[in-house]
């Protein structure tokens, strides 16, 4: 790595300092000093602090109920975790949620039955994701700026579609997914848990999952190793699009109506969950477990602030600060544990 030495002569083989290999770190350190551990500790601390402040937090049912406000974003954050591990980023999911939900609403208003309208919405998610993927993998534009562009485009199109009015009148069987319970667990939470397990297994034990890590660690090495980098990235962007549209439908069901500004600003929440979960912003490292824990951490913190009567606008301060602190900490941990 240090090939840009000041003096090329100094880099001649005879003068190369033979460095002792560092002793392997003790196993407990490898297991414990990792970002997910920090997330877990924070989660435990936050829960204890919150339950001291308010008896509500001792009640699992209350936490599960309040989690439905954030769980849609957490579901998208799971897929975003894979995208970021692969070394890309997608800032457009919140806008994709809005556009696919508005398409759903418009299709329903046009007289299509709900299942067909949902199909339209999912198809839109696929197309939007594929468009992102096309710009990134075929035209080779940086995903950071591409997805800022499509963020504006998709939300703009949602605005064109829905104007500034909300589309409501959805049938009662469709509305209120957050009130459907399995035991004491709301359906969206169940979806989140199931998606976490599925994606965790996908990332952890399938060949594709391991290849995502390889791509994020070194894309060039991955190409030379015969990994179909572009195909996998395209797949990830499409997955992000479809997941966003599912999340959009869940919001539509929860609110009973759709507007173009649905989930506006939620890109911050999603990136925050992924970063809090210890996924490395430069790719190659991270886990679904971390994102899963971070989602609950966010639920506890956000709900805690609401219970403590902190205005939702002032909460923005904490969220922003949290995002910055979490990347700084994650980077520091990786810098310590990796050379």
């Amino acid at each position, binding site marked *: 790595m240090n090939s*840009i030495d000041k003096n090329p002569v100094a880099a001649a083989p005879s003068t190369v300092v033979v460095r002792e290999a560092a002793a392997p770190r003790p196993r407990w350190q490898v297991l414990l000093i990792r970002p997910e551990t920090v997330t877990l500790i924070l989660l435990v601390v936050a829960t204890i602090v919150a339950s001291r402040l308010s008896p509500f937090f001792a009640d699992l049912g209350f936490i599960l109920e309040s989690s439905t406000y954030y769980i849609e974003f957490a579901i998208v954050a799971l897929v975003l975790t894979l995208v970021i591990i692969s070394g890309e*980023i997608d*800032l457009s999911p919140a806008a994709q949620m809005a556009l696919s939900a508005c398409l759903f609403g418009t299709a329903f208003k046009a007289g299509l039955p709900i299942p067909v309208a949902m199909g339209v919405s999912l198809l839109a998610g696929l197309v939007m994701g594929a468009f992102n993927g096309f*710009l990134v993998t075929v*035209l*080779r*534009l*940086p995903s*950071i*700026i*591409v997805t*800022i*562009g*499509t*963020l*504006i*485009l*998709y*939300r*703009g*199109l949602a*605005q*064109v579609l829905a*104007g*500034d009015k909300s589309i409501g009148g959805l049938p009662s069987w469709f509305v209120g997914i957050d009130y459907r319970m399995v035991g004491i667990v709301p359906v969206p939470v169940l979806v989140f848990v199931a998606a976490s397990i599925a994606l965790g297994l996908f990332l952890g034990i399938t060949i594709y999952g391991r290849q995502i890590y390889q791509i994020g660690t070194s894309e060039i090495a991955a190409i030379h190793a015969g990994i179909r980098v572009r195909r996998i990235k395209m797949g990830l962007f499409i997955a992000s699009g479809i997941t966003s549209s599912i999340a959009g439908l869940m919001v539509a069901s929860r609110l009973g109506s759709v507007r173009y500004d649905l989930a506006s*600003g939620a*890109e*911050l929440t999603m*990136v*925050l969950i992924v*970063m809090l979960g210890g996924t490395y*912003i*430069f790719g190659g490292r991270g886990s679904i477990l971390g994102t899963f824990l971070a989602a609950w951490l966010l639920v506890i913190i956000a709900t805690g602030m609401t219970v403590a009567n902190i*205005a939702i*606008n*002032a*909460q*923005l*301060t*904490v*969220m*922003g*600060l*949290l*995002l*910055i602190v979490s*990347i*700084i900490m994650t*980077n520091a941990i990786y810098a310590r544990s990796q050379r």
Partner: protein
Amino acid sequence: MSSIARLFRAREAGILVMLVLFVVVVGLIQPRFLSTETLRIVLLAVPLILVAAMGQMMVLVSRNVDLSIGSILGFSAIAAGMVFRDYPDLPLAVGFAVGVLSGAALGFVNGLVVTLFKLPSIIVTLGTLSLYRGLLFILSGSKQIDPNDIPEPLIRMAQTSPIDVPWIVIIAFAVAFATWLFVTYAQVGRQIYAIGSNPSAAPLRGIRVMPVTILVFTLSGALAGLAGLIYAARFGYVNPGITGVGFEFTVIAAVVIGGVSINGGVGSVLGTVLGVLLLGSVQVALPILGVSGFWQNAIYGGIILIALVIDRTVRQGGLRGLLARGGA
């Protein structure tokens, strides 16, 4: 070097052609677009974007991005507005100083976090976008600065001046000119390009990347702060939940259209000015063409993507280079 210079010229010529074409086409469809009144409206719409775009241009040239300028604009406008409201006896200049300095301070924080911890600016400024917005809600107590709290002289700056062009237009173009001088003749200004062209080579040439990067973010913040005062002058109120929301995207759109490369190292003041004018013309043309204002964001998004593809094409030597998929 000369080929790069040619590229610069080609880019700006391209944007100019786009601008002229746009004006002519809209003028053909709706002749009343080609009037001095339109020019006046465009010139009034431009200063806000132009001032902030100068800062964002330098940030992009240094291979960073600043997503927090909308919140900085809001914060500075609120801070200055509160000075106007609570200390009406102080001269206007104090309000300006408060706005610009608070913007500079917030920008400085961005730069410090980005360089000190070596973090990607997009994530840091996404965080500060939220952080600063939250702070401005706390600072203002979620209360709006009402029109009657904005001093009369400030409002007049958006209307007239001794030479009959509103002050804010003069200020905006003066800022653009100063930026041009800075990035063309000042050593630090040139170093921004060096850093953006090759961040790992710049320190080997003796450039102190950290202070220069911090300076760039500070300038971007200060200019966003100035834009906050222009906002107060033009709209006559400041609302914590409205002022500057989504502004960063408009500015990034203008700058990217202006031929500033998101890969750093490439971008000019002239191109950015033309990009801002093009965006301003689009903004003004939509209602004249009878297109619903709801289209504005979709069009901005589309324009950004088109500009990115064009930028890619130019760098890869035309369409063939783009489709040959050589190199990264």
